[in-house]
């Protein structure tokens, strides 16, 4: 029973972190039709920024968190302005360039901080809560709460603001959006900042819990693509739903068997969904 509750809480935390990463990936695919393979590295940079500004420079966790969001958002803006915008006419260009950014960020992190780093980020929420006789570290609950707040904020932004409508309009019909006077460039820029910033926030949230390394983005991005396919490409609601289903599934199988079995089972889950519903859980069949 204890083990079950513990696993449930771990599932919720994994879902929360995964949802933050995946929603940004889905957002960029929706708006720009780009698969950002460097998205996992933005998560990694977020964790390093949280350590550097929060711990190394001594700013504290909150400063580290804000810095992580700002640094990653700036990388996102850079990618849009200097890379994607210049490669608009090239169908393979953005894809290849995201792999380039992935390698550059990984190498930069290894070069600046070393490969086998033992960097520790202290959570301001030390200690553990006692829930039904089980000790649950406060920071895990904080990750869950923070993800709910951030995703809630994103929903409000997309549903109730002019920027949100414009962003959804661009994702749904680019030419029609231009006819309303919406600047695709401006929306892409803000969408990249938002998407990268959310990945950075996820990295900073997870930094006190996971081992920080230049390669920590790799498993995240693989999971993220599985989740996006599961949820239906381009659907934000689908991505969040799939993040929760996949992370819960994965965490339970890891806990009761092991993580290799969980990876295989996760892929089988994706295949099963694709067989039953080829467009993903909440995806729509594309018209050709």
């Amino acid at each position, binding site marked *: 029973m204890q083990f079950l509750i513990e696993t449930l809480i771990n599932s919720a935390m994994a879902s929360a972190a995964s949802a933050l990463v995946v929603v940004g990936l889905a957002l960029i695919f929706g708006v720009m039709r780009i698969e950002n393979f460097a998205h996992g590295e933005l998560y990694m940079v977020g964790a390093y920024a949280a350590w550097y500004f929060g711990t190394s420079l001594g700013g504290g966790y909150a400063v580290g968190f804000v810095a992580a969001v700002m640094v990653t958002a700036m990388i996102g803006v850079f990618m849009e302005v200097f890379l994607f915008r210049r490669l608009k006419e090239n169908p393979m260009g953005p894809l290849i360039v995201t792999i380039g950014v992935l390698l550059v960020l990984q190498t930069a992190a290894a070069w600046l901080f070393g490969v086998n780093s033992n960097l520790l980020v202290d959570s301001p929420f030390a200690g553990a809560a006692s829930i039904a006789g089980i000790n649950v570290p406060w920071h895990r609950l904080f990750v869950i709460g923070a993800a709910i707040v951030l995703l809630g904020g994103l929903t409000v932004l997309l549903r109730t603001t*002019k920027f949100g*409508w*414009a962003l*959804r*309009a661009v994702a*749904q*019909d680019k*030419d*029609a*959006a*231009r*006819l*309303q*006077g*919406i*600047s695709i460039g401006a929306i892409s820029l803000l969408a990249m900042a938002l998407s990268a910033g959310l990945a950075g926030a996820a990295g900073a949230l997870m930094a006190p819990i996971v081992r920080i390394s230049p390669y920590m983005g790799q498993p995240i991005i693989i999971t993220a693509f599985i989740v996006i396919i599961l949820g239906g490409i381009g659907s934000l609601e689908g991505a969040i739903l799939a993040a929760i289903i996949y992370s819960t599934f994965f965490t339970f199988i890891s806990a009761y068997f092991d993580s290799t079995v969980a990876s295989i089972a996760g892929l089988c889950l994706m295949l099963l969904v694709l067989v039953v519903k080829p467009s993903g859980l909440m995806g729509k069949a594309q018209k050709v």
Partner: protein
Amino acid sequence: MIELRNLAVHYGRVAAVHDVSLTFEHGINCIIGSNGAGKSTLMRAISGLVRPSSGSILFEGEPIENLSAKAIVERGIAHVPEGRHVFPELTVDENLKIGAYLRRDSAAVKRDYDKICSVFPRLAERRKQFANTLSGGEQQMLAIGRAIMAAPKLVLMDEPSMGLSPVMVGAMAEVIKSINAEGKSVLLVEQNANVALSLSSDAAVLEQGRISLRGKAADMKDDEHVRVAYIGV
């Protein structure tokens, strides 16, 4: 109001519009032509979605062919695209409000919004529904409402009668007249020449990217070639 001077538009090396020169004054005017004649391309060039390869477009006497789509909306040209292109997963309400994306005068936007809701009560009833739940005719009304929300001086309408029942086509004609009655000009592009010509004062026929005939809409209804090719009587 709008003048095209030696306008040419190419897609790659293929010319869709060749050397088109046309002037339309205020009011309702139309360009008729068959499928693939270059009508939509001409509309897309006016609203800045495609760049002309040569020639110029003058709106109220000023060249606009090098302006962005956004700047052209700001100048007062709204475009109701062929096939409606409402935002399928935005609600009716959001679709209308996004038409006023560049406007800052919220009181006037609210007035226009209420006006559209009173002209199109079907849209008002479905305010909270996604646009993809509407019928074709309702979507066309929504696309027109969205264009009106931009407070344009000139409304470009690309095949507004396409796919509509005869009753809806009649309703559409009334809507176009009422838009014009409010002082907005309308440039219609249609395969359905009958309706377009009866609404318009001036008309032009576009064939294979070139203007083949130009004149008063009333005279064109009697033109032998137009009758055979576009009216079918």
